[in-house]
């Protein structure tokens, strides 16, 4: 793919152009140590060195609450509701790109989720090579340091005021060209990008799995009855935070509300999570995962085995958001997988 060199001074003009027809989101500092993708406005300071966006990008593709249909109570006619604003996510780290790729696969297979599909199609992903690593992140050891596809442009900061931009789609290239003539990256600039990647991956490897991540499903297969599940889940508040901050968790509940005339209404979906107590409870109150340990284990199996068995990748991209979000300190795929590995290794 073509790679161009872009200078920082070109960005305000590009952002301005892009925001004419798109909602543009860029990384910014919320407060000391907290960053997020926020709506761009002229003069906003971009936090190039953000370690992780506090909120995962899934909210742009699978919003916390989304209307699916409108209905008429009398005629029982229903119509779909699609909302797919044109948007550009500028500054998506590769592990989050991988997470989006995973959502693409899971929501578009079988009966494609049209609401997701349309939002995704209207969303431009501009990946960005991280410059720092979140203390709770471990993406480099779960195979999520590199996103092979899934972006329209891939930005790498190679100097104080320069970037290489690798083109991932025609749409991306056209957006880039809106800033004026494109400057092909020199061999030196491309080498700079390669070094930037190597540098950050080296940094990110500081903490990691004690085994090859591809062993995780086989490891979990041996660990259904591990005492670890109970040990950790005793502290579980069943608050769902680990699910909700996870860039690959996409479970949802469906609810509805009639309008005040009781004639029409909307049916919507809202983020849900398998760690919530009533997640697997059916009418009549039978709960198929009644205990915290059942739910806790399910989440790790889903991340480490079930998703892998479906698509050949872990359901965890190592962003570390759940590690941070868990007030009880028990959500930590790295720690859980490593401890299970130790447990099973010591058995032999």
């Amino acid at each position, binding site marked *: 793919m073509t790679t161009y060199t872009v200078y920082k001074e070109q960005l305000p003009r590009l952002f301005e152009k892009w925001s004419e027809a798109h909602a543009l989101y860029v990384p910014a500092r919320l407060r000391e140590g907290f960053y997020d993708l926020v709506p761009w406005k002229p003069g906003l300071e971009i936090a190039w060195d953000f370690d992780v966006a506090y909120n995962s990008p899934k909210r742009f593709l699978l919003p916390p609450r989304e209307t699916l249909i409108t209905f008429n109570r009398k005629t029982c006619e229903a119509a779909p509701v699609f909302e797919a604003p044109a948007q550009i996510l500028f500054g998506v780290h590769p592990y989050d790109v991988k997470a989006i790729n995973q959502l693409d696969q899971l929501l578009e297979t079988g009966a494609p989720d049209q609401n997701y599909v349309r939002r995704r199609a209207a969303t431009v992903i501009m990946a960005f090579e991280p410059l720092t690593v979140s203390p709770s992140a471990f993406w480099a050891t779960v195979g999520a340091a590199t996103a092979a596809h899934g972006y329209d442009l891939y930005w790498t900061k190679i100097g104080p005021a320069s970037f290489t931009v690798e083109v991932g789609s025609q749409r991306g290239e056209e957006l880039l060209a809106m800033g004026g003539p494109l400057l092909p990256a020199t061999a030196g600039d491309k080498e700079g990008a390669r070094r930037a990647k190597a540098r950050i991956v080296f940094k990110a490897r500081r903490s990691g799995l004690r085994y090859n991540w591809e062993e995780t499903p086989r490891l979990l297969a041996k660990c259904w009855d591990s005492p670890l599940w109970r040990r950790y889940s005793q502290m*579980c508040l069943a*608050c769902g*935070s680990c699910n909700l901050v996870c860039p690959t968790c996409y479970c949802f509940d469906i*609810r509805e509300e009639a309008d005040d005339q009781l004639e029409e209404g909307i049916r919507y979906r809202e*983020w849900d999570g398998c760690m919530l107590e*009533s997640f697997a409870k059916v009418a009549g109150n039978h709960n198929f995962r009644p205990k915290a340990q059942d739910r806790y284990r399910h989440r790790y199996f889903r991340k480490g085995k079930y998703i892998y068995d479906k698509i050949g990748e872990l359901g965890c991209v190592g962003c570390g958001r759940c590690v941070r979000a868990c007030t009880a300190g028990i959500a930590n795929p790295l720690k859980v997988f490593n401890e299970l590995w130790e447990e099973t290794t010591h058995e032999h």
Partner: protein
Amino acid sequence: MAKPRIAFFDFAGCEGDQLQIANLEERLLDILGHVEVVSFREVATGHSDDYDVAFVEGSITRPEDEIRLKEIRKNAKVLVALGACAAIGGINCLKNFLAENVYREEVYGSSARWFSTYAARPLKSVVKVDAEVPGCPIDPTEFARITKELLLGRAPWISDFPVCVECKQAGNVCRYEMGKMCLGIITRAGCKAACVSQGAHCWGCRGLVPGANLDAARIVMDRPGTSRKAIQDLLRFFLGDTGAAL
């Protein structure tokens, strides 16, 4: 079919929940168009004992309240607890942690002996409650939804998960990551994490979430820089009638 008749009642409380309902303004007219209001002090005068649905605000703080509440229960097909005081006892229960002579003296001074009062309690301690609209104050949009669900003949749904869920949906930075205390981890959601979204923390006004892991919550709250007293105060603020406040 005749319109269901509804009535509003209040016990110990500020009537703030009925005020919240009045704040629905035009929406209220639409919703109340499906019913006949026989008693609603915040909006209109007049009263009748012939009603199907009773919305009851406030907590029970005097023995004679029980008689009145049981009467309401007898008249109503559906009894709905409106707001924290009615649903969980709420801040009225703060007095339950004081000796009776202390709070009597504090409230009524030298004329204390002329007033009857006892430990504050939620409606459900006295009568069967069919549904609740939680919160202090209630969220008017939730009241509207619950009322519509009752009108459509379903048991109203209220969330059965903690505030954390809605806080994450809102994208707030977790109070615990800011070194602050927050009761969102054990409190029933449904408020759209209003207090946290406004920059404060959760006070627990919507009551405990079913199955709240209080042991874990106490460990989570007990962090360096947080006094046990501060934890206790927060847990007693709205949750005085629950196991959280021990």
